[in-house]
């Protein structure tokens, strides 16, 4: 039996989290800000992550255009407790990852790119 799209997305997110130590949570969100799939802690409000992730990416993309920075490739928000990484998956979806401060960024970006490629095949 072919797994559902939700199950396939969940499996890809799970692989990503397992391959990069310190990735705490992930979500696939539509560019409308609506959550498609997520692996988030219970205390994180899924709707808010979706809406804010899409808004951050959208504003960043607009800013990149306005300030002639070319096509936006990723957004990395750095806080004292860790990072929020946001990348687009094609035209209609985005990936949001919550990551601890101790992560190796090179590894994170590399595995994130692979994850995006897998997600793109499904979405």
């Amino acid at each position: 039996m072919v797994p559902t799209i939700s199950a396939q997305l969940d499996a890809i997110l799970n692989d990503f989290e397992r391959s990069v130590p310190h990735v705490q949570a992930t979500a696939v969100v539509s560019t409308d800000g609506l959550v498609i799939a997520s692996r988030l802690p219970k205390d994180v409000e899924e709707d808010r992550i979706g809406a804010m992730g899409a808004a951050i990416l959208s504003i960043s993309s607009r800013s990149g255009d306005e300030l002639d920075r070319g096509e936006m490739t990723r957004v990395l928000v750095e806080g004292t407790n860790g990072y929020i990484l946001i990348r687009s998956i094609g035209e209609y979806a985005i990936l949001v990852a919550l990551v601890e401060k101790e992560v190796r960024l090179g590894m994170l970006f590399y595995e994130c790119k692979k994850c995006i490629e897998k997600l793109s095949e499904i979405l």
Partner: protein
Amino acid sequence: MADIKKIVIERDLNPYHSFFASFFAGLGELGMLNQGSINIVSKRAADYLYSYLDAKEILPDMNAVPGDTKIEIIKNLIMYVNKILTMVGEYDLQEAGDNKVVLLIEGNTCRICPKGVGGAAVKGTLCPIPSLLEALINMIAQKDMLELITPGIEKEGSTCKAYFKVLN
């Protein structure tokens, strides 16, 4: 942008419709607003509106809302909310089977659409109506009567559709 004069006249807009639709359109175009954030903010607005209606002593008495079935009561509550906020001209609430209802809005009569009225040049939808109705009606009823199934609104030609599950 579409012919503003035509929209103002045909949809019978008041200045608040014009202001808010264009204001939200601007935020949407800057990337600051999307359907997900509208769904969240609508619930906050419903909270505030409920307090407003309470302060003005115009909240409906649930025992006096006409209707023999839950769906008829919900229809009348939607009519009440729309009468106060004058959001849309033509709409209908129809049974969709399996304890579901569908709200059908004639898009060309909507007065608060950030896209159709405000002229937002964005992909996707920016509709506050379904999430606002869900939250406000549940507050007025003092129980969960409606649960929004559609994550926003679906466009089908000129009709905008939102599906709800009828609870309790």
